């Protein structure tokens, strides 16, 4: 056995410029905490919302600058470099995912900052510590107290989401996973209305999330035991240099997959998704559904392509099973749902299945001809398409209301088409995009992942995926039928007029859904330009 080697200490080299998007987001989050401590209560909302949005815009600008520099220095192979002593890979896919997450986060911040729908107050609990239905809660509501902590919390979560897919070693990835998850657990429990189910969602998400990250961590420990390093490149070397399967590697790989598949809400680790999506404040649900999925898929792809690519014959059968199961469960159980948010949650599970189908296609960029797209690029495009539609759809859910706040039961949406043709029309458009009807982004995205999976040899899975798309189309169309061809029950739904914030989010979501359906080429080019993961 070796003695622990003592090496001379070298000052780590960190290029702050390339990591500036991350640093800006974490910096703004910390400033947000200070604002919470020192700014007077009545000014906090304005300061926090403007600060968060500007911070995200600045981070997005930084991503564009870094990406421009990286493509200027491109030597023809993979874009970008590995920074921070091997901890963070600032490569093409990372930059693409950073840009995507930041754009979705800006849209989510608009929903977070919406105040007109609740009558001049945000949709978050006035005082999370005050018990529901007590004098303290009534007083907090009367005095118009609101939790502006949601903005710094969301910023920390976004910081974690940027770090998660870019992490080039498993330890960084675990820390990023926790940095993105912990604020989300809290955000889920902060709804102003229906606080019991919101708190319950937070509890369920927390316990299951902590459980799954423990599995992820044990997976890291076992893979470390196998490879002797956390770095993905060295794990790849160790995996590729030995023939035959090792129990340590197989178990570690499976446990890593549990943690990552939990985050992307793939079956059989999807059980939390409907409960949490339904119970969380709708703005938070939109944020989680779009941004977490993008970040988690980025991390999943990086671990399995870069670190464990050499063992793909071992993990592929498992992933086939997971993909088929996820699509089936998401599409079939969604049919029986009567709650819009819950139905969208199952739809999100089904989409995770379609994304994993694309991920299995696994034809790498180096081995394909010019105009074809690799499976990584197909998945990236699908994530962009799916995120815009999801945020738009959940934003529409926030404006359909009755006296008790948002009304999410499907029966209450009956006759919405007569009451508010525009809102119902936009929602129907989002649903058609989820179903993958041509001329929407959903169709282009599905086409991209299915063709890439098909040419990767996963044709049985593509057949399952197409079948499940048909099943899924059934329940999307059912909602459209309820909205347009049913008579309203009782008073029927009312559509509150939101402020410009939510309107902008819905408009951008709808416009991008249409645009990516009609002219997807620019985003495909961007994804192709992003290239493959750096090793």
């Amino acid at each position: 056995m070796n003695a622990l080697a003592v090496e001379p200490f070298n000052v780590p080299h960190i290029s702050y410029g390339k990591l500036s998007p991350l640093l800006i987001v974490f910096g703004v989050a910390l400033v947000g905490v200070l604002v919470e401590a020192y700014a007077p209560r009545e000014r906090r909302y304005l300061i926090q919302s403007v600060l968060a949005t500007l911070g995200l815009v600045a981070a997005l600008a930084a991503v564009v600058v870094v990406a421009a520099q990286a493509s200027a220095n491109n030597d023809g192979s993979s874009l970008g470099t590995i920074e921070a002593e091997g901890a963070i890979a600032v490569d093409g896919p990372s930059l693409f995912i950073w840009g995507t997450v930041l754009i979705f986060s800006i849209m989510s911040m608009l929903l977070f900052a919406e105040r007109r729908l609740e009558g001049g107050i945000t949709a978050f609990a006035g005082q999370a510590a005050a018990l529901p239905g007590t004098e303290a809660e009534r007083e907090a509501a009367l005095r118009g107290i609101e939790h502006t902590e949601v903005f710094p919390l969301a910023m920390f979560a976004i910081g974690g989401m940027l770090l998660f897919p870019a992490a080039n070693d498993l330890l960084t990835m675990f820390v990023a996973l926790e940095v993105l998850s912990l604020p989300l657990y809290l955000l889920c429990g902060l709804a102003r209305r229906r606080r019991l189910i919101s708190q319950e969602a937070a509890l369920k998400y927390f316990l299951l999330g902590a459980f799954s990250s423990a599995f992820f961590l044990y997976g890291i420990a076992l893979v470390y035991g196998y490879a002797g390093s956390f770095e993905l490149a060295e794990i790849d070397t160790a995996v590729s240099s030995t023939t035959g399967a090792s129990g340590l590697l197989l178990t570690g790989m499976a446990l890593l997959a549990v943690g990552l598949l939990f985050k992307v809400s793939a079956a059989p680790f999807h059980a939390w998704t409907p409960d949490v999506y339904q119970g969380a404040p709708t703005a938070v649900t939109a944020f989680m559904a779009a941004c977490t999925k993008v970040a988690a898929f980025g991390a999943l792809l990086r671990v399995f392509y870069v670190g464990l690519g050499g063992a793909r014959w071992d993990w592929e059968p498992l992933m086939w099973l997971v993909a088929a199961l996820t699509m089936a469960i998401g599409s079939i159980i969604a049919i029986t749902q009567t709650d819009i948010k819950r139905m969208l949650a199952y739809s999100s599970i089904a989409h995770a299945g379609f994304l994993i189908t694309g991920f299995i296609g696994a034809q790498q960029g180096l081995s394909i001809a010019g105009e074809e797209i690799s499976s990584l690029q197909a998945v990236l495009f699908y994530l962009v398409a799916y995120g815009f539609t999801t945020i738009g759809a959940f934003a529409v859910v926030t404006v359909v209301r009755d006296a008790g706040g948002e009304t999410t039961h499907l029966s209450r949406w009956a006759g919405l088409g007569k009451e508010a043709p525009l809102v119902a029309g936009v929602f129907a458009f989002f649903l058609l995009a989820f179903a993958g009807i041509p001329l929407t982004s959903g169709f282009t995205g599905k086409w991209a992942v299915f063709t890439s999976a098909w040419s990767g040899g996963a044709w049985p899975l593509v057949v399952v995926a197409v079948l499940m798309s048909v099943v899924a189309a059934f329940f999307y169309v059912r909602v459209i039928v309820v909205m347009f061809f049913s008579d309203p029950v009782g008073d029927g739904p009312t559509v509150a007029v939101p402020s410009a914030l939510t309107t902008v989010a819905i408009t951008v979501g709808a416009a991008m859904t249409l645009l990516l359906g009609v002219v997807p080429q620019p985003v495909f080019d961007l994804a192709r330009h992003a290239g493959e993961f750096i090793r």
Partner: protein
Amino acid sequence: MSVTPFLVLSAVLFGVGAVGVLVRRNAIVVFMCVELMLNACNLAFITFARQHGNLDGQIAAFFVMVVAAAEVVVGLAIIMTIFRTRRSASVDDASLLKY
């Protein structure tokens, strides 16, 4: 000295934690079981660090301790809130969201 006993102990601790999460009802106890799983991971990290003769695993253990501490803060806050609302910390009682 062989590292195997430590790995077996770590696996046993992890298993005890995982089973505990699945069978216990009290949210605090469930949470303690998750912490046990994290500490089992720490033991595995340190054992493998010894086996490979590098420091990575030991560093990881420190990171995990910090993360576990942060998780306790968030977790206890959520469990406290739900306990004050419902006067119960049983995970079976929190069942408004289903199907």
